[in-house]
């Protein structure tokens, strides 16, 4: 069957990419300047013998191929090493910080996709209307805005003492606040609002623009005219024929964008002190904490690869033509 072949091809492709990332990740951190043991030692002022011992412990004196075998084996066993900064296994550190990012990126992606697509669909449907012109301008402006800048403006407007003080300045919850129950959820929601809004605003313009142009493209197609000529009502023409076909390029974009959303989260999390992977990356870079960075890079790469795979699979489901190709 064409469908199964398509599926297998895409999964194999994803696995190859993953293997490449694994290799790249190893060499990237070997090329970076500085010796991890010395960096570690300088922070704690160790004697030279202790540094030599650290180098031995880290396996930095082993030949490169040996180091690679160790690295690959450890990575496959989900052993990413010990974080310099936190003195705990990298896996554990990442696990402790992954959920705030998943929450933020998840809410932002869903929010921006839904709102962006609706704006795009309505704009294309009522092309040239006041709504269309307004949303077009709005999309272009938000699309062009850097998200950290937008975040800071929102902070000043809605959180600072010189602003409205409607929302907290940062973090995911009020220190010493409720730790469970509805009060806890509300507290997290209040903290989530501004960073999520920042990311949503930064993303939805692009989705709205792509959806609008994609839909306008499709609406000129003859099968749309045919459906109309057969007596299908306009709203149904849109729902049954135009939107599903116009979604194709948009789906790919949303999935491909997941990678950028994560990198966007780095700046947004920093602005809002959101204790997720983005902020953790910044902390790891400042240290510098190589094992942690390596783990984070791997995770981000895997996220992008998985997002791509999902995009391919959805695309294959949405467009029967792709399955054969």
């Amino acid at each position, binding site marked *: 069957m064409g469908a199964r072949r398509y599926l297998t091809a895409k999964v194999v492709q994803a696995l190859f990419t993953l293997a490449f990332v694994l290799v790249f990740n190893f060499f990237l951190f070997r090329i970076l300047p500085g010796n991890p043991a010395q960096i570690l030692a300088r922070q704690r002022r160790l004697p030279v013998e202790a540094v030599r011992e650290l180098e031995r412990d880290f396996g930095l004196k082993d030949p490169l191929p040996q180091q690679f075998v160790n690295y690959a084996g450890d990575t496959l066993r989900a052993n990413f090493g010990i974080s310099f900064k936190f003195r705990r296994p990298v896996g554990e550190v990442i696990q402790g910080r992954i959920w705030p990012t998943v929450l933020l990126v998840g809410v932002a992606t869903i929010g921006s996709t839904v709102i962006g697509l609706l704006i795009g669909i309505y704009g294309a449907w009522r092309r*040239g209307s006041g709504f269309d*012109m307004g949303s077009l301008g709005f999309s272009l402006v938000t699309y062009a805005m850097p998200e950290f800048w937008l975040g800071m403006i929102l902070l000043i407007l809605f959180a600072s003492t010189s602003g409205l003080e409607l929302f907290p300045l940062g973090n995911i919850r009020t220190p010493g606040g409720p730790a469970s129950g509805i009060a806890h959820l509300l507290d997290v929601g209040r903290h989530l609002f501004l960073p999520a809004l920042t990311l949503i605003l930064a993303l939805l313009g692009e989705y709205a623009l792509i959806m609008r142009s994609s839909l306008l493209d499709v609406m000129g*197609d*003859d*099968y749309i*005219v*045919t*459906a*109309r*000529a*057969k*007596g*299908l009502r306009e709203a149904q023409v849109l729902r049954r*024929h135009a939107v*599903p*076909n116009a979604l194709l390029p948009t789906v790919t974009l949303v999935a491909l964008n997941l990678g950028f959303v994560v990198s966007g989260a780095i700046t947004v999390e920093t602005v809002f002190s959101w204790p997720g992977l983005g902020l953790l990356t910044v902390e790891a870079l400042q240290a510098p904490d190589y094992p942690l960075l390596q783990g984070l890079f791997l995770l981000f790469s895997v996220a992008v690869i998985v997002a791509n795979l999902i995009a391919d699979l959805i695309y294959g489901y*949405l*467009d*029967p*033509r792709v399955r*054969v190709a």
Partner: protein
Amino acid sequence: MSATGEGRGDGGPVLEVRDLHVSFSGRQGLGAGLLGRSATTARAVDGVDLEVARGEIVALAGESGCGKTTLARAIMGLVKPASGEIRYAGRPLRHRDLREFRRKVQMVFQDPTGALNPRQTIYESVAEGLRIHKVSGEEDVLVSKALADAGLRPPERFFLLYPHEVSGGQRQRVVIAGALALEPEMIVADEPVSNLDASVRGEILALLLKLRDRFGLSLLIVTHDLGLAWTVADRVAVMYLGRIVEVGPAEDVLTRPLHPYTKALLQVLPEAGGDLSGRSILLGEPPDPTRIPPGCRFHPRCPEVQSGRAAELGMEERNRTEVPLLREIRPAHFVACHLA
């Protein structure tokens, strides 16, 4: 000025178009709007009268941009006419009758690839009209019959295929099946074969002729190809810049054309062993529906004007000022030319 044809039609006309006008105002882009440019108006269809009788095949011919596709779309209710009337089965077409009309009159497009939703199976595409109009009966039986009537046999083999999995000719048959499923009285076909391979063209045309003979279908075929009109049509209407300039029985119009424009079109038709020297090729500006010349709209390009024959007959002034109307010169053969 009525253009009634005898053709092979029996009974009264199925479709009548009376003094139809369709115009488009140029969409003002953001830039043009800011620069204060005013929108231009294109009179794509500029006063057309046309009739199609029951069981008759009428070819609507003309160059690209002459308004023939717009006329077809206006007939289908896809473009709103500025003025004029479309009568169906003797009654003016009103908005509330549009739904019924859209069952009785079906449209077939030039590019079958574009006319089928790529995400729908052939079954879904053919069944769509049945579902829109809530046609009673077993859906799969009706779809089977329509596919078989369109020459796709055995029909079941095509049910679950997607448009990209069949050939271009088969795709056009699927489009025709989608039209036939609703048991229409008339099909409006916009360049139905010009996107198909030459070998498939004949098959599709033969299919259309067969459908007329079997079901008494009326056909309005929009085409730029007079050869095609010659092959299938009972009557031919030649359109120039939004108006019909000549209409009559196909053989009469194509062998003894009266309008200089029709003559020019026929002269550029390639013939076996023919030679192109000494033929009149149309000169002058290409037609622009935003700037229609006054008087006879063809006069700036008319070979008769250029050769001076119009001046000999003392018609130059009239050509520039008076719009020629369709006149019956030979039985059922009408032409809109001061010189005819």
